[in-house]
Structure formats: structure tokens, C-alpha cells
């Protein structure tokens, strides 16, 4: 958990690449297991599984059922009406489901163990242009802010007689009264936001300093090298194992 963000990102990247290169479900299972172990060590296993079920499980099940029972393969035999079963389908489905899980779990894990402020902090220390970092950081922060604001707008418009629940058409009609104030007031406040940044010296030409510094430890560098090596090894000889 205390690893440097980019090192963790490298782990995730490696897991994903391996998963994409491989066409064996056993490999995918191994990768899933590795992620689980990582999560276990960082104390996030329970939340990882919970998040997985909240977001992805449904899609995985849907795809699985679709592959096994609905899509036609040469070896399909009919069970009932459009429902059919096929071994090829089952194999594909296992492959597909395990791959989706193997790819998405590391990503969920990454964002569980790395808070966005640390990512921004790490980006801040790189030589990336500060404007790019600004856009990213401020977008991430503004989203919840706008969500909250849209709730208030929702209330304000209900208070003047706009029905915000009900049929589809009813809800489409609320689009303009909802989005109008959100966009207008944001744009209106934009100027003051710019001036605030100027008042904090944003466009000062001398190079920025940073308040904190998170540094890469030896283990980070070591892991970086090992991970790169593993990657190279698999890219060159991987075909045989995967």
C-alpha cells in the first residue's frame, strides 16, 4: 500500500498486459489470484470484492449466459426455443469472464489503495506541464462539487413547480431547467475562479516548488526493475506459456 503510485501502476499494467496476451483461462485465474493476494496484503480484499459485485458482476454474468446459452456455435444443441447449449460457448464464456475479471480487478485495486491526491502529488513532482496537471486535478475535484450543486438545483426547480420524477418524457422536460443553471452558473463563476488562481500566483513564471515530497524507496525501484524484466521475458518467450 505504501508503494509509490507509479510502481503500483506498473504492477497493474503488467497484470493487464499478461491477461490480454494470454488465451488460457488458467492463466487468467492465476492473475486473479495474484490480485487477490495483493489486495489481501494491502487490507482491501473485502472492499475489492464488494466493489466488484457492485459494478461488474452483473455484466460478467450477462455475458456468460449470453455466450453459453444464446450464441450459436457449430456444436450447439437446442434446449428450448432460442436457448441452446454449446461446449465451445462455455469455453469462450469462461475465457471471457475470467479475462474481464482479471483485467478489471487490478484496476479497482489500484484506485482502492491509491487515493487521487497521492496520484496528483506524484504527477506534480514529474516534469509534466503544470497546466495539464491542473486540468486533471481540478476536474476530479469539481465533479463531486457539481453533483452536489445539481441536487440543490433540482430542489430549487421543484420548488417552482418542475416535476422531476415520473415518466421518461417528464424527466426529459426537466433537462433544460436542470442543466441551464448548472452550466450558466459554472460558466459565470469561471472568471472568478481564474482570478482566484491568479491571486494565488498560478501564472508566476518561476518554477514551482512543492509542499510535500513523496519519494520512491529502494523497494519501489527494485520492483520497477523486476516488473519490467518479467514483462520483457513474457513478451519474448511468453507465447509458449500463455
Amino acid at each position, binding site marked *: 500500500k505504501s508503494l509509490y503510485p507509479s510502481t503500483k501502476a506498473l504492477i497493474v499494467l503488467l497484470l493487464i498486459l499478461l491477461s490480454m496476451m494470454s488465451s488460457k483461462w488458467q492463466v487468467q485465474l492465476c492473475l486473479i489470484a495474484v490480485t487477490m493476494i495483493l489486495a489481501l496484503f494491502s487490507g482491501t480484499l473485502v472492499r475489492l470484492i464488494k466493489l466488484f459485485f457492485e459494478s461488474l458482476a452483473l455484466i460478467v454474468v450477462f455475458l456468460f449466459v449470453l455466450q453459453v446459452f444464446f450464441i450459436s456455435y457449430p456444436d450447439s444443441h437446442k434446449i428450448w426455443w432460442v436457448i441452446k447449449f454449446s461446449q465451445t460457448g462455455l469455453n469462450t464464456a469462461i475465457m471471457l469472464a475470467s479475462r474481464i475479471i482479471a483485467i478489471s480487478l487490478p484496476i479497482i485495486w489500484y484506485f482502492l489503495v491509491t487515493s487521487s491526491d497521492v496520484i496528483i502529488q506524484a504527477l506534480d513532482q514529474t516534469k509534466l506541464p503544470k497546466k495539464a496537471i491542473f486540468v486533471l486535478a481540478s476536474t476530479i475535484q469539481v465533479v463531486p462539487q457539481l453533483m452536489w450543486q445539481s441536487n440543490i438545483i433540482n430542489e430549487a426547480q421543484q420548488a417552482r*413547480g418542475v416535476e*422531476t420524477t415520473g415518466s421518461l418524457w417528464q424527466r426529459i422536460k426537466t433537462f433544460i431547467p436542470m442543466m*441551464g*443553471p448548472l452550466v450558466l452558473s459554472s460558466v459565470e463563476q469561471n472568471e472568478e475562479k481564474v482570478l482566484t488562481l491568479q491571486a494565488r500566483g498560478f501564472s508566476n513564471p518561476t518554477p514551482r516548488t512543492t509542499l510535500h515530497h513523496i519519494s520512491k524507496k529502494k523497494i519501489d525501484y527494485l520492483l520497477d526493475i523486476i516488473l519490467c524484466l518479467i514483462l520483457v521475458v513474457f513478451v519474448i518467450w511468453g507465447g509458449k506459456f500463455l
Partner: protein
Amino acid sequence: MSYLSLDDVSYSYDNKNNAVESVNLEFELGEAVAIIGQNGAGKTTTVKMMNGLIRPDKGRVLLDGKDTKGISVAQLSHHVGYVFQNPDEQIFQDSVEKEIAFSLKKQKLPQTEITTRVKDAARLCHLDNKLNEHPYNLPYSQRKFVTIAAIIAMNPEVMVFDEPTAGQDHNSIIRLNKIIKKLTSMHKLVITITHDMSFVVNNFKRVIVFAQAHKQKEGSPAEIFSDESLLRKSKLEPPVIGQLAKKLGFSNVLTVTDLLRVVN
């Protein structure tokens, strides 16, 4: 039976700490009532129950003798108007006139009716020469009057203003004062949340004090601002003239005119 009553209402946002606890309130048409208290005392939560934006966890809100439970906010809005603190959270039309007329058009009122209502509301809020302006071309304080006019045009029996004095200059506060007088003379019920104590003593005969999720006391400004322990508990200060009068040895004197009278 009073027109609007809150019958032992409680509400909590997080199921732990009540934002409003066991509040009883009765209001009559033709009244102007001020609600004061620090931020977080439960003022806004209470008034939001009046138009259904918040439904009490416990207790009932009765409007004209009927329980408002199950009536949508949009329907209630014809009877209880609510002006939010920040005008930018509701303005979206490209002219003041359209903005004020928006709710009326939704009600499908005849065009002539809409035109007169918009004109009357705009005149009351001193916006009659601004009807064709883009709302965002007006300063913040005037945008606030646009939202007030929009609610007045809907002609509800009850009107709730959430901090209408914030960011307003001297003349705008005098204008607000006139609007409130006019509305009460039209037999409306006006409920105002405010932090401006001299605004309170100059315009309201009935004041309700909130602190720590409870209604602490209600009464005339004199009753409220002479209650030392209440003021301490709810972290309120009497208006400066009240402070001066007390120093000079006069109690229950809160406005410049009153102080002049007793001093002379």
C-alpha cells in the same frame, strides 16, 4: 386552526444526529415571521419541510388543515413558494421576463394573465425596466430579486425567503422591506430566514430562534433580545442600537426611532 402548522417534526440527515428535533410551529396568513439562529441550527431544514423538499422523519406538516404527506413538491409549490439563497441555482432563461414567467407557462395560464402577473411582480421588485435584460447581465443582488419576483408571480399563499439580505446593499434591504409589507397586506404568509438583526427588529413582529436543532423561543423582537440566556445559548447578538440602549439603561429598545423617543 392555523393555516400552516408543523406538528412535532423531527428530521435527521444521517440517521444519527437530528438536524431538527420536535419542533412545533403555527403560522397564520397575513403574518411576517423571521427565523434566526447560527448556521447549522436547523433553520433551513425546518423551512424546507414547509414545501416538502424535506419530509419529516417524525411529525406532520399541515397546510390549510391537510397533511402534506404524499403531495409532490411541484404541487405544493402552488401554495408554498420558496426562494433559495443563491439565485444562480435556479436562473436559466435568457431574459428576466421569461425567467419570471417560466412557472406560469408551466401552469398553462392564459397569456394575458401571465403578462399581468409578470408585470406586477416585476414592479414590486423594481425590475420593470429590466424585463428584457439577460439575468446574468444584472448584478448578483438584482438576480436575487429576479428569483423573488418569479416566486411572487406564482402567487402562492406562503412565501419562504432564505437569507434574502445576504449581499444586499442599503437600498435593496429597504426594497425587501417594502416587498414583505406589501405581501402581508395582501394576506400572504411571509417567512424569512435572516442573519441581519436590524432587518429583523425593523420589519418583523414575530421572531423564532433556532439553536442546536431545537426551536428555542418565539416572540416579539423585544422579548427575544431581552432574554440574555437565550442569546448566549443561540450565540446571537442584539442589534447595535439595542446594545447601546441597554448600556444607557433602557430595556426593550431596539430601533433608532425608539431610542430617540426614550432619550428625549
